[in-house]
């Protein structure tokens, strides 16, 4: 008992005061990219050529955050002449098109379905479905339940049964072998229900795009309401998206 008290005192309170106070991530973190539209087209082509995800569209001078794994190669190869990654972690979007970005994203709070805010704003229960990703999206979603983020203080919980859930939170590129289980889980959630695509894999197949063993686009099976980009999305990216979309 004494040890428990001693450790409790040593640990103190570690919960972040976000979103009441802003939080700053270390400068090497790669969040929302800034794009220099005046960049030399040759440099843009160089960035597009090195992009392992083929996420850079030269003519439009845009970057597809639904494909991007935020590896930073486009920034490195041209010393940031075309793309520089900011430390802005808030990157959720309510449509797939919005993720094809010129460096800005529409304000998420204004684009959410208003009845979702009314229905789920005070209590949101999600069933997580892990569908053939690499487990880092799952790991950084789990982290939201640790004392630093303490997701439950916002009335948001991950629950054990789809019957108890208001929606599904899907990670991974959806292997053929997970498709049936995913649809069964979605069907088991009572309506009205939300669908969240979390991470590059669920949005576009991520690192596995083009594989014949995957579906690669959650929206092609069930209608997606909220997209959270990243590889994996930073826990703060997920938290930001959930708070802005539902609160």
């Amino acid at each position, binding site marked *: 008992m004494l*040890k428990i008290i001693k*450790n*409790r005192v*040593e*640990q103190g309170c*570690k919960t972040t005061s976000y979103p009441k106070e802003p939080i700053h991530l*270390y400068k*090497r*973190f*790669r969040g929302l990219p800034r794009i220099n539209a005046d960049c030399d087209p040759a440099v843009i082509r160089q960035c597009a050529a*090195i992009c*392992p*995800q083929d996420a850079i569209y030269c003519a439009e001078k845009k970057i597809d955050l639904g494909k991007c*794994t*935020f*590896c*930073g*190669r486009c920034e*490195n190869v041209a010393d940031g002449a075309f793309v520089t*990654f900011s430390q802005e972690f808030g990157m959720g979007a309510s449509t797939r098109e919005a993720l094809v970005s010129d460096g800005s994203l529409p304000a998420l709070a204004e684009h959410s379905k208003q009845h979702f805010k009314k229905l789920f704003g005070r209590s949101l229960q999600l069933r*997580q479905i*892990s*569908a*053939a*990703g*690499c*487990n*880092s*999206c*799952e*790991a*950084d979603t*789990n*982290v939201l*339940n*640790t*004392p*630093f983020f303490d997701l439950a203080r916002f009335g948001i919980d*991950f629950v*054990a049964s789809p019957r108890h859930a208001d929606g599904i939170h899907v990670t*991974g590129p959806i*292997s*053929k*072998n*997970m*498709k*049936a*289980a995913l649809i069964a889980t979605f069907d088991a959630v009572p309506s009205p229900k939300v669908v969240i695509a979390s991470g590059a894999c669920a949005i576009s197949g*991520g*690192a*596995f795009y*083009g*594989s*014949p*063993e*995957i579906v690669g686009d959650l929206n092609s099976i069930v209608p997606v309401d909220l997209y959270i980009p990243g*590889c*994996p999305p*930073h*826990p703060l990216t997920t938290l930001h998206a959930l708070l802005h979309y539902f609160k």
Partner: protein
Amino acid sequence: MDSHLQIKKDSLLQIQNGETVPRSVIPCLTFDRFAELLDAFVKNNGFIVQLFAFVEDGKNKLLAVVRNENLYVLATEVGESFPSLTASTSPRFHMFEREIAEQYGITPKDHPWLKMVRYHANYRQAADVFGNDYSEDIPGNYPYFQVEGEAIHEVAVGPVHAGIIEPGHFRFQCAGEEVFSLEIQLGYQHRGVERMLTEVPFKRLTVLCENIAGDTSIGHNLCCCQALEALGGLSVDPGARTVRSIALELERLANHIGDLGALSGDVAFNPPAAYFGRLRGEFLNLLQVLCGNRFGKSLVLPGGISQIMTGEQAKIIGDKLKELEPEITNVCDLLFTAHTVQARFENTGTVSKQMAADLGLVGYCGRASGLEYDVRVAFPNEAYSSLHANRNEMVAGDVYSRATVRREEIMHSMHLIRTLLNRKGEPCAKMTMHEFTLAPESFVVTLNEGWRGEVSHCLLTDKDGRIERYKIKDPSFHNWTGLAMSLRNQEISDFPLCNKSFNLSYCGFDL
């Protein structure tokens, strides 16, 4: 060619970890000789690192990489079937032979447990060994093992689990609370990674390898990059080797600490679960300080690292370790001295040394049962040849032993990182991903001690230097069977605890 690569047509060829070997010098034996050599090797304390099929000049071949205190390679030609080594020699072969059957449609005859591994059509468009029609949903034609009797009942769990966990299916055969048998059926995470690696453009290779298993991003990508470096003749700066080793240890720390917290949660002792959960994040944040990603993705590239570690990052890591070490020591003490925790950890999920050796367990699962093998010691690469090893004394093979090995390795890893941070002034250039030519007609195998144990990648190039076969082995490939065996005669309520003490990768296994 190195002088030690003597062509011995009729024996095992000794090789080094991460060494390019011309395919022409790999001894290709008759199957009888291949089986005879492997039988003698395995029965004399030898273990399998890789055993896989490939097609060469239209012929089906098997290639084996095996280890005792050295590494060896050998190959053989087979037709549409071969006599199972699982049946004749050792269960160490059993999962490898099932994988060969699934990937290439080659039947290991008399295999005692010939079932699909991941549920996909084979690479050769050959007749399916399991009689599956892959337009049907998983698991297809998969006869589960069943125990029959009046008091017997069956419990089926998954693929979607009651937490934020990867998918897999578990079948328990129980009498009351007691588990007679657990069968684990995986494959739900299968993404076809091995084949993709032979087809995608060069620039995607490292990104794919980082996503084989996100909790082992550094471990898997190191294997890939070391193999490409060997085949491309690239040298790596000592400073880059130091940073890669630091990253591998940070990955180990984050996972071990997170798992001790989860073990604590599984026995309903909440304070350490909360503290370790938060502490785990601190180590993920240190990886983010190094490279901008909490899982170390994008850090390792062929030839070095994408971002150099300056004094600033070294200081952040060093200061953080100084701050966290006493906290971790105290929370470990809290966990391991609680009587209720000891009562649940001790004698639960025991895997004897004999069983561990029969199954060829690796990593902390093997070490907790008395198999000392650690790639960092046996076949050191990166900065490990100059670092000292941890040797654990607790080898009872139960949950308590597996947890204790983790605790020791946490302390050991922090010590290693401190040692590595003191190496200042080593040359280290920043790398960008660039395409280079690979040695044609060559073979390379790389091994690293990921946090779960031996991670290994094997590459074969064709006459134009293209990757013809890419074989990946996650340590989970060995260890899942260990988990199934640890559940025998246990209470079913101890499953979460046993499972977490192994904490194996679904996606690393499913590929």
